[in-house]
């Protein structure tokens, strides 16, 4: 059986472990986050939503997913 490698990343300020070679798109889909209502940052650079499918998550990557909430 092929061994699944896990990598450590930081999501919204918290360390988590995910499967290696995951694309940002499949990762966000798995989180069940509505892509049209959020913005995504990878290592402090905004990722164009069209490029999510081509972006592979690497070890120690920092991902931020933000949306609008109530505010003044």
């Amino acid at each position, binding site marked *: 059986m092929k061994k699944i490698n896990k990598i450590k990343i930081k999501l*919204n300020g918290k360390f988590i472990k995910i499967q290696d070679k995951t694309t940002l798109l499949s990762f966000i889909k798995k989180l069940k986050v509505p892509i049209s209502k*959020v913005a995504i940052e990878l290592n402090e650079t905004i990722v164009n939503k069209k490029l999510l499918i081509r972006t592979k998550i690497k070890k120690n990557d920092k991902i*931020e997913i933000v949306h*609008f909430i109530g*505010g*003044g």
Partner: protein
Amino acid sequence: MKKIDNLIIAKKKFKSRLIVGTGKYKNMSDCAKAIKFSGAEIVTVAVRRVNIVDKKKPLLMDYIDPKKITYLPNTAGCFNSQEALRTLRLAREIGGWKLVKLEVLGDKKTLFPDMIETLKSTEILTREGFKVMVYCTDDPLMAKRLENSGAAAIMPLAAPIGSGLGIQNYTNIKIIRKQTKLPLIIDAGLGQASDATIAMELGCDGVLVNTAIARAKNPFQMALAFKNSVVAGRQSYLSGRIEKFLFGSPSSPKEGII
């Protein structure tokens, strides 16, 4: 009487001159209801991390339709230019928002804006194609500088955010009104509906209210009160008030007195 009296910001027309914040409400449905009562067409919103753990948490967009109400992304909570720029670039990425509210705070206690950072951010954002409505102090010189940097609207505070103190410096607001053709919107510090009327009577183009509505005992009634007070103040300003006199002047004619 002027029939069409729209508020125009960055070439966009709005019928309502009241902008409301969406923070500090008990829940999202109260917030949406208060917005309805206020008649506001623009609401400020904050950019924050998505709650990954609790996915059942209601989303703002499910309650306030951004197709019907203009979202005005705000940089509330940012204390330097870098944080503010990052926030607004993310806001633009969510759905192409270019009309934004810039708020760079300088002091945690007073929540006064840091005008050096604010000015710097306004210049950069304008270069990047943003239409920037700028929260600022009521300093006429700073207001002029913001205007020269390409701001889309000048938004001086009436008093510290959430203080409910009402307009503290009538003179400065009047001076800013005289010197700028940009939309002038009082942002922060209002406490009751009559404060909004005063702002409008000073010649402001609009007011931005959050706490005074959200934290009122009856936020819906207060939202309606603000809606009416803004309309009253605007009409009063456009009507041209009478001069002030020290002595009385009878309202009824002297002729024909019995």
